[in-house]
């Protein structure tokens, strides 16, 4: 267009003037080019680009922590979020948890959780009311899974207060059946929660983590350098978690004690379930705030032994407990073993536990650089995500302090903080590329839960972040990568319908990757019901092996790339 404007102007100018004119035109042209260049992506050299598209989405959700200045501790830890396809229309929808008015807080309109239906094209519609999922309880943790195996995803909320089990009615609506199902769980301060098939009987059991023992009577007020602050969780006793066994008839039985998990009290926060020891059953990792992490090893029957210390996953490399927040699970080094990444408090590095096999983990944070940028901040939602589809998983970390006045007494950190993106260099190391990775990485809020899914079905993973007391952040993955990819959705038949707990191995030439379907992960949230595999320049997938929890092993061969495939239990080669 610029060139045609230029030509139109040239016709009427005399030759003497032409020289000047051309000179002017040249300058103008250069100026235009310069402006164009500046408006072109300044991050063009970065392998990963995450753009802030929040405003485009029409999402109007704003989080509240329900506080009134009294500094109740749960205000700091709200909340997680869930990404899942609630209406089975093929795209990922978003469910945000919200806080609720605590003692001393008065509101005109009760805040609620919010469900946004993905309309495609980065447009989302608030369908909370029609879906019936606008719980007004104090939201902390959420997980998603088809607990009744009827083909649609249900939601479990782990609140401060009674919990909620939203059974998906299959028609875009949900019904709260928590009490009927026996999982309303009394009145606790919830945290992370997961569905898992603990006993390999084909239906999803429910793990419910509890943060601490709080009541208004036990509330502790404290100050730091004269400023009122939220109390350290150590002021409140730790609590054991709950495990509910699915009876298969829509109800659950509390097996916390008999399973072994209820015999250990901790300050549970983020949790994730995965088969870390590759023995065909689902284990549970709990990131405990201010205490040793728990790793519950499943004996295959739904009985668990706590092996965190023995395996090296309880503490950091020095034997110190961390302020564990969120837990990511994935194979960052493609050695076929699931590793864990645990976010943490200010003054502590987020910790990467590398699975060495043989029931051993090693804190490799320092040697890999995977804690870079985390020391001055409080870190929360996180995951291993292959953002550029090159076959190795990077790390995203959501950051933000929990003391909203921290700058008044500690200027080495900030309440609002930008999030972190650590690029996996492929040789066991990570480097911080946050600065070069798009305007989405420049946002500074106090982030909590984060979810990672392909929201626009274009083959790369996008990001949704819940920010405390603010609007969320939606980041579209605009990475320039032209690498190949594969997305895998599982459909169990005899095993649980969404293949939760299934172990998937993808082989493409010399690249072999594994992943598992998790229900509940990161910081008290849920995402990734479908699995994402970046394939680099491999143009086909030779083999996908699926080990179903409590079921067979299926092998699918010669799969085309750059698509989502649905793998059905029993339809592969055994």
């Amino acid at each position, binding site marked *: 267009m610029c060139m045609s404007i230029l030509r139109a102007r040239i016709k009427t100018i005399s030759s003497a003037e032409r020289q000047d004119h051309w000179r002017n035109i040249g300058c103008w042209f250069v100026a235009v080019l310069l402006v164009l260049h500046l408006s072109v992506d300044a991050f063009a050299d970065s392998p990963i680009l995450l753009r802030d598209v929040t405003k485009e989405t029409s999402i109007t959700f704003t989080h509240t922590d329900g506080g009134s200045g009294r500094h109740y501790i749960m205000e700091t830890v709200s909340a997680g979020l869930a990404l899942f396809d609630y209406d089975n229309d093929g795209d990922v929808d978003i469910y945000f948890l919200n806080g609720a008015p605590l003692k001393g807080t008065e509101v005109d309109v009760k805040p609620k959780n919010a469900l946004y239906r993905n309309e495609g094209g980065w447009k989302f519609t608030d369908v909370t009311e029609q879906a019936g999922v606008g719980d007004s309880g104090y939201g902390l943790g959420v997980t998603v899974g088809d607990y009744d195996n009827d083909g649609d995803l249900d939601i479990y909320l782990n609140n401060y207060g009674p919990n909620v089990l939203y059974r998906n009615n299959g028609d875009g609506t949900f019904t709260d059946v928590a009490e009927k199902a026996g999982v309303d769980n009394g009145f606790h301060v919830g945290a992370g929660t997961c569905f898992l098939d603990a006993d390999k009987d084909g239906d999803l059991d429910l793990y419910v983590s509890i943060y601490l023992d709080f009541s208004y009577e036990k509330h502790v007020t404290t100050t730091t*350098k*004269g400023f009122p602050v939220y109390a350290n969780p150590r*002021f409140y006793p730790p609590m054991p978690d709950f495990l509910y066994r699915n009876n298969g008839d829509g109800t659950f039985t509390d097996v916390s004690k008999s399973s072994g998990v209820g015999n250990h009290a901790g300050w549970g926060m983020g949790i994730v379930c995965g088969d870390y020891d590759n023995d065909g059953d689902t284990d549970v990792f709990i990131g405990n705030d201010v*205490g040793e992490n728990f790793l519950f090893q499943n004996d295959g029957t739904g009985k668990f032994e706590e092996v965190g210390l023995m395996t090296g996953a309880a503490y950091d490399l*020095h*034997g110190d407990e961390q302020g564990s927040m969120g837990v990511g699970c994935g194979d960052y080094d493609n050695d076929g073993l699931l590793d864990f990444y645990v976010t943490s408090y200010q003054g502590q590095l987020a910790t990467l536990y590398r699975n060495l096999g043989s029931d051993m983990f090693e804190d490799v944070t*320092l040697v890999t650089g995977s804690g*870079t940028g985390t*020391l001055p901040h409080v870190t929360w939602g996180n995951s291993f995500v292959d953002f550029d589809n090159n076959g190795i998983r990077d790390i995203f970390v959501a950051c933000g302090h929990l003391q909203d006045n921290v700058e008044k007494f500690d*200027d080495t950190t900030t309440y609002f903080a930008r999030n972190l993106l650590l690029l996996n260099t492929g040789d066991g190391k990570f480097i911080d590329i946050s600065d070069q990775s798009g305007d989405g990485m420049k946002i500074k809020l106090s982030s909590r839960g984060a979810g990672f899914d392909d929201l626009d079905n274009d083959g790369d993973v996008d990001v949704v972040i819940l920010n405390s007391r603010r609007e969320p952040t939606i980041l579209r993955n605009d990475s320039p990568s032209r690498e190949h990819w594969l997305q895998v959705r599982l459909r169990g038949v005899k095993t649980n319908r969404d293949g939760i707990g299934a172990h998937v191995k993808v082989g493409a030439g010399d690249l072999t990757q594994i992943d598992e379907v998790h229900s509940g992960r990161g910081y008290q949230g849920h995402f990734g019901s479908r699995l994402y595999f970046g394939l680099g320049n491999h143009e086909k997938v030779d083999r996908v092996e699926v080990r179903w929890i409590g079921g067979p092993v299926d092998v699918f061969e010669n799969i085309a790339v750059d698509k989502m495939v649905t793998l059905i239990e029993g339809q592969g080669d055994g």
Partner: protein
Amino acid sequence: MNTLIEAICMERCTITEGRDTGNTGGPQQPDSHAPKKTLSVLLAGFIVCAFNCYLFQVAAFPQSDENSQKTVTTSNLNELNESTGPALKPEQEIAVLKKEELELAERLMKDFPDSINAIIHMGNLWERHGDATKALEYFDKALEQDPERPDVYKSIGWFFMNKEQYEQAIEYWQKALQIDPNTPGVHHDIALALMGQNKQSQAIGELEKDIQISPRSSLSYFLLGQLYLRQKEYEKARNYYEKAIEIEPNHTNAYYGLFTLSIRLKQQDKAKEYMAVFKKLKAEDMKILKDRNKAVDDLIQMQKGAAETYMLAGQMYQAEGDFQKAEELLKGATTLDPNNILCLEKLASLYLTSNRITDAISLYRKISEIDPKDPICHLNIGILSMRLKQLEKAEKAFHNVIEVAPGFSGGYRELAQLYLRAGRGYPEARALAEKAVALEPTALNYFVLCWACDMNGDSQNAIKAIKRAIQLEPANLKYRNVYEHIKSKN
């Protein structure tokens, strides 16, 4: 002999006081009795006064100037001690305290413009109040005035370390080492930064230097263990973990290291053993943390911090001879932090410069209540009580010294002297003096033994002892005089 020694004590104390305090208008110096008193008295006085020097600060204090132009805000200090209205909430108290402390620190910088300590303290103060950026400004100012301050470089290094800016941190720490290669802890700090950058071999080098300077740094030994574990040099790792435990038997992290090492080597029995100890120590640590969380009071913490500023201010005004202001400020420090032994000692020392022995004793008694196992405190009480001729109290104090520090010769020696001066218990005095010599064969201890032997009629051993004292301190004329005196008697 007894009378001579007492005379020596009195004359020597007087001389010492005159030299130390100048024309303070303190207690009048008694007339000299030297021609009439025996040598023993003079020497005993020397001994007592030698301990007075131990009590007093080394620096001489010029006369305080009643008309000093330097002012310090005293109204705020009065507020510390007086109730002036309805009680403030702790947050309000802290805000007031912070304001006053800052004002005092700023006043110090104004009144002592050439004092780099005032600038550094301001930096430390801002750091303590959570403003590291402001702190850095003052540290930089301090370095402009004196670039040869390793302690300042050390502080600045940590500013960058907390931001994960490892290179900058190392740069500043290396500057500290250029000034003083033996600055304790700096090699350790550099090692931490290198570990943050995964430069393991270099970190090992720094830690090995650190343990040369600080051979009791259990943390450095532990970190060496960690690094060698990482490098799979398991025997070295084990040795360093064990060394850390040797220094600090309850080193929780070192046991974790040994546990991890045993797991790596598949030594299950050892692993279980170390795990059990680690779990036990960890449980104790967690309990301490929990109790500390509950016990820590923000206001008290702030008061303790402010006490440091008041104490520094007191010392600075004292050094300038303004004892009145110094006393106000040091009293302020002890009010803010009543259990701060250093504050109490500084104030006691100030009282002694103006011969306020009773006030000084009262402070040492406070210290002994805070730390009953401090032998020096009991020793001071004893010596000062002797000066006031309160022999019973002195005797009790010296017994306390022996009880809390049976390996310290001071208690035995002073008690021996008390008996000798009191004219009683000569055999006990001798036994005590012999014990003192056995523990620490110093010239002074030998002198007291000489005295005790002499009072017990054992000239031979008295001479032996004084000869030994002379050997150890050949320039000490008094010992020679005593020797001549005893020889002449016999």
